[in-house]
């Protein structure tokens, strides 16, 4: 039986975050305590008096899931229970890379025994699809709408994996729900390593990205296969693995399935910039 009971979840059909969160908790097992940031996952899983969580789970605020987890970890250490109980902090991309970045950096620097999972759906979906620091270049969000003077989000994704790796923590990795076995292996590996760990999981959002719920897994695969979302691992600050894509797919195949990129399809110049992003990833990570 899953430790995430979907019966008490109000997630949208095809929600990638729900799929990923369920995998993470089930691999972690029942001796786990989760600290969850404010966001979609928190809202759809904890509506009073119900809860989807079959492990002890705490939600405090938006930016502090890493700090709350740090308190849980310190308390377990004090009680002599840290060997037996795993601590996971989790948040969306905004709660991780924007408002939660300071607390996350503090948790890394303290060397605490915590796995931090970022469910990256590339925007503030819970509040109505506003851009975050992990929103890709040229994306149409409600705060970066395309128009006469704009083609959407003006900046590329914040390089969170490199930022985390620069802390020289034991393990940093990216995964996608499009590659379930790889995701599961990385969760297992992360939980087997002592110290702070960071896992960023690509999770499509049908509502915010404007695609059919049946396309979630396909899009989650294509993001990786085009080179736009590299699946990599860093250990102690060094790149140690990257999932190879010997024949990268054209980015249009990925973009055309999503309403958030629809405005780009006839814009050759901007399409070229996206293609260049993929190429740069392929080169720098050796995909």
């Amino acid at each position, binding site marked *: 039986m899953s430790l995430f009971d979907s019966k008490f979840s109000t997630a949208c059909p095809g929600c990638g975050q729900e799929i990923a969160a369920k995998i993470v908790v089930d691999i972690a097992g*029942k*001796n*786990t*305590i989760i*600290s*969850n940031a404010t966001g979609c996952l*928190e*809202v759809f899983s*904890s*509506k*009073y*008096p119900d*809860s989807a*969580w*079959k*492990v*002890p*789970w*705490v*939600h*405090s*605020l938006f*930016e*502090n899931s*890493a*700090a*709350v*987890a*740090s*308190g*849980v*970890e*310190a*308390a*377990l*250490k*004090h*009680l002599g229970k840290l060997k037996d*109980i795993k601590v996971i902090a989790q948040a969306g991309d905004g709660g991780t890379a924007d408002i939660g970045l*300071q*607390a996350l*950096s*503090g948790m890394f*620097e*303290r060397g605490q025994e915590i796995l931090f999972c970022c469910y990256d759906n590339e925007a503030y979906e819970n509040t109505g699809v506003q851009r975050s620091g992990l929103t890709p270049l040229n994306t149409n969000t409600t705060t970066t709408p395309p128009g006469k003077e704009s083609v959407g989000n003006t900046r590329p994704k914040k390089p969170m994996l490199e930022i985390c790796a620069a802390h020289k923590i034991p393990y940093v990795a990216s995964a996608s729900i499009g590659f379930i076995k790889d995701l599961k292996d990385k969760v297992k590996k992360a939980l087997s390593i002592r110290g702070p760990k960071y896992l960023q999981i690509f999770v499509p959002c049908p509502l915010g990205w404007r695609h059919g719920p049946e396309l979630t897994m396909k899009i989650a695969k294509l993001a990786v296969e085009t080179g736009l979302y590299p699946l990599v691992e860093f250990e102690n600050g060094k790149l140690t693995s990257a999932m190879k894509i010997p024949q990268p797919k054209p980015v249009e195949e990925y973009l055309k399935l999503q309403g958030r990129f629809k405005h780009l399809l006839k814009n050759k110049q901007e399409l070229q910039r996206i293609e260049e992003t993929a190429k740069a990833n392929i080169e720098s990570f050796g995909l």
Partner: protein
Amino acid sequence: MKRFLEGSRGVAEAIRLCKPGVISAYPITPQTHIVEDLAQFVADGELKTEFVNVESEHSAASVVLGALATGVRAFTATSSQGLLLMGEVIYNIAGMRLPLVLTCANRAVSAPISIWNDHQDSLAMRDTGWIQLYAENNQEALDFHIQAYKLAENKEIMLPVMVCMDGYILTHGYEPVDIPEQKKVDQFLPPYNTSYKLDPSHPITMGHLAEPSCYMETRVDIQNALNRALEMIPQIAKEFGTVFERNSGGLVESYRLEDAQYVLVAKGSLAGTIKEVVDNLRKKGKKVGMLRIITYRPLPVEAIYQALKNIPNVGIVEKAISLGAFGPLFTEIKAIFQNKKGNPKISGFVAGLGGRDITRETVERIFSKIEKRQMDLEFIDVKQERLNEFVRF
């Protein structure tokens, strides 16, 4: 054992005796000496606690929140901007019913930046559901922390307590204080034990999403718990007196009120100065007295009413201002007397903002003001000539 100690050290000694499992704090003047002393206790093996150094007060408050959610007693201390930065978590801790004890080394708030004492920081947190106690001297500061844990962790209360002590005046002032024996503290304060915690053998969800159908009751429940605290605080003070053979704590302190005609109301260390002035004026035949608010939240409405109902002239002296309105305590004490028998003339005075000294002479002047007429708001010892310039920073 009596020792001549800095106020901050006294608080650190109290916390050592209360044995929190997790301490987390971020440096801010004038709170720093408290956590420095605690860090040294941990370094010397005198206190078995996880001391978590963090990158902000927001995280300090979040770390102790997480520790309490895991069922472990915790402590933090802060001041001024630090308390304001914690603000979001301050509400959260009360809403989640976690019995944190926090020292607020009271300090003014920016801008302009000022490291000196007033009560604007803790007053900004008065509506959060926290219990607030104000110490007059270093012995009280020490004692209140021990009482605070007992109060916060009471199953009928389960709310955080902020022990407020005047920055510099108390935190950096040396006074003889009695440090209780560990044995007696253990007798008074049992270990923190709760079933409301993150525990894999009994998994619970904490921090639910509340729809309109259930949010309001959470606030009523805190209000009810705070009302119970009004009964509990004097009981705890009494028990403290029995175990430690010293009077400390409670809701209010009446000082020479029996036949008083003119009474000042104050919180914190200012009460010490007022007591001296009262004694001097009494020698000159003036019928003066003082009421000290020890517990500010919950507001001890009945105790204040009983203490002041037969006093013809009352002046509230406070180190805080609700800008655009009045002193907060003034407004509240006025409200207590609305539609009640006995109706003292109540005046409001705001003094000592940003560390401006409130001397005995200042207090004497305030006494003479309430002899003359009632006023809702007067700022004390303001340099009028400064107001002709642009007072902008």
